[in-house]
């Protein structure tokens, strides 16, 4: 089912899958957003291939988080097109519809349901009917329990399954949030600063986790930690003042003159 321009919004039951016959999962074309005259995004173009792991870097205010907001429906752009696959126009959908269409987002600050257990956090995030009446009479099926176990195993929180999420360490909360995204079986994962505040070991484990996800999912990571970016990235996109400054492998980026000037120059000084 495809959502037409004016009408039938996605019901809470429907989940449509993106058409990726051209190999691209996400098209962002000519997107501009301004807040009170300040151009947060300026005619930005970005294409993400299906199954790709992409890193987005850029100084503060370069527009990274605004871009995530636009893709997930939190902010509406002034101009431009955002398509999920070839057919789904994300600008016609709201946040929850976009989530159900298969785009998961991890916030900068780890956000989990603190009063619920780790298990319940994953349970609520499972792909499926998100309507009120199914919530009232919902019973977990065997397959769903298996899926939760699988996710818990992937994020390494099997032993903590019955802990209230509020009692997890900072790093564990970050993983739990990634696990919640995985439970929804998204096609595209947007991950905002996954290793902020993590120890070296936690960072390493997160790098492994994210690289293992690529292929099955497309992953876009926003990160400041250059060592981390270097360890996971195949393709890096540099944002500057709301548009794409450069795109390529980490080595190409580091050799790029413009980038050295505006970004790495400051960062590595």
């Amino acid at each position, binding site marked *: 089912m495809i959502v037409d321009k004016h009408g039938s919004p996605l019901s809470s039951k429907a989940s449509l899958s993106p058409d990726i016959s051209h190999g691209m999962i996400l098209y962002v074309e000519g997107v501009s957003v301004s807040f009170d005259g300040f151009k947060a995004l300026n005619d930005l173009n970005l294409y993400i291939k299906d199954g790709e792991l992409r890193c987005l870097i850029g100084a503060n205010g370069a527009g990274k988080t605004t871009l995530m907001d636009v893709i997930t429906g939190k902010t509406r752009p002034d101009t431009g097109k955002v398509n999920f696959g070839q057919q789904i126009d994300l600008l016609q959908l709201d946040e*929850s519809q976009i989530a159900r269409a298969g785009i998961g987002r991890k916030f900068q600050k780890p956000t989990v349901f603190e*009063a619920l257990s780790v298990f319940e956090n994953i349970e609520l995030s499972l792909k499926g009917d998100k309507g009120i009446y199914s919530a009232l009479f919902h019973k977990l099926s065997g397959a769903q329990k298996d899926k939760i176990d699988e996710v818990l195993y992937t994020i390494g929180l099997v032993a903590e399954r019955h802990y209230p999420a509020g009692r997890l360490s900072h790093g564990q909360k970050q993983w739990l949030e990634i696990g919640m995204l995985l439970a929804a079986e998204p096609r595209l994962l947007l991950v905002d600063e996954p290793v902020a505040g993590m120890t070296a070991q936690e960072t390493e484990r997160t790098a492994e986790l994210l690289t293992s996800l690529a292929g099955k999912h497309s992953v876009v990571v926003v990160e400041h930690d250059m060592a981390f970016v270097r360890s996971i990235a195949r393709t890096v996109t540099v944002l500057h003042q709301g548009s794409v400054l450069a795109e390529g492998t980490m080595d190409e980026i580091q050799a790029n003159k413009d980038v050295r000037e505006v970004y790495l120059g400051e960062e590595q000084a």
Partner: protein
Amino acid sequence: MKNLLHCERFKKLRSLHFVIAILFIATLYVTLCNLFFAQGTLLHVSDYTVSLLGKYLCYALLALAVDLVWGYCGILSLGHGAFFALGGYAMGMYLMRQIGDRGVYGNPELPDFMVFLNWSELPWYWAGSDNVMLMILLVFAGPGLLAYIFGSMAFRSRVSGVYLSIMTQAMTYALLLSFFRNEMGFGGNNGLTDFKEIFGFSLQSPETKLALFIATAVALAFGYAVSHFIVNSKMGRVVTAIRDAEDRVRFVGYKPEHYKVWIFVVSAMLAGLAGALYVPQVGIINPGEFSPLNSIEMVIWVAIGGRGTLYGAIIGAVVVSYAKTRFTAIMPEAWLFALGGLFVLVTLLLPKGLAGLLASLMDKLSPPAPENRSPTPAVTSTPAAESK
């Protein structure tokens, strides 16, 4: 681990059975002592006390409704008195029509206040007010519809926090002002009173009072069972998640506003039911019930009892109402200070309220079961961050 899950479930189920059993025993005790022990004997429970207890149970049901939205969903409604009063007016209209020609003016059709205002016929919205089924429908539909309209507008435009609380205050205050007006057709500032009968039974007779008390206890048990079912379903977990991280819920694919409207409407209906049972027991409904102060008091019941536990709301409502009865008999002018002081004390010393105190006492008394060692508290019943 499986044992643990079972244990949790068992605990939750036990709390349901426990509350209903206590309610049943208390009701039975009061009933028997009222019927079979003569006045003057030690165990006698007077008709006055029966009505008073019935009133407390109405408050308990109302507190339950407040806890459902505030304790679990984080919606701090300071206007739940409006839903309570609307339920009360729905019942009041029916009771007015039951008076028939026994009113002061002896008009068989029109209530006294309408005769007094020189009205010649019932306004259109009083049509069918003498029909029991319509009355029962209105008790739920009136508050439910108001909650639906208010909730849809407020939650869809993502109003939350103190702004929402202020709007709920404004809502109940606006209703207070409009129900004060004689032209509204609800008796103006005198409200609806002078009731004679309910379903053909005299409201003055002790048996009717006892029956109303028992009906209220049954309604409270029903309200508790419904709330218990909701908060322990996946619905309850979604709602708790909304309380703690609404944005996360939205990006997981739920529509928080739908859930909030739904639980707000259910809560308003429970409050309406409480109001409908309250009116025949106190014999009057007037616009004072819409007063913002009343709605704030309801929130204090829940805070003192312990939010996010359901049974805490019942304890809080009964304890505070009892204190109010005793206190206002001794020093009426000091009651609000006492209530305020109690609220501050509980917030400072017992952040989880009386229910939290009770739970920690129970934990100390019962020896830890072996499979219960793992550091897992009753997760869903933990109140959220106190800041909310």
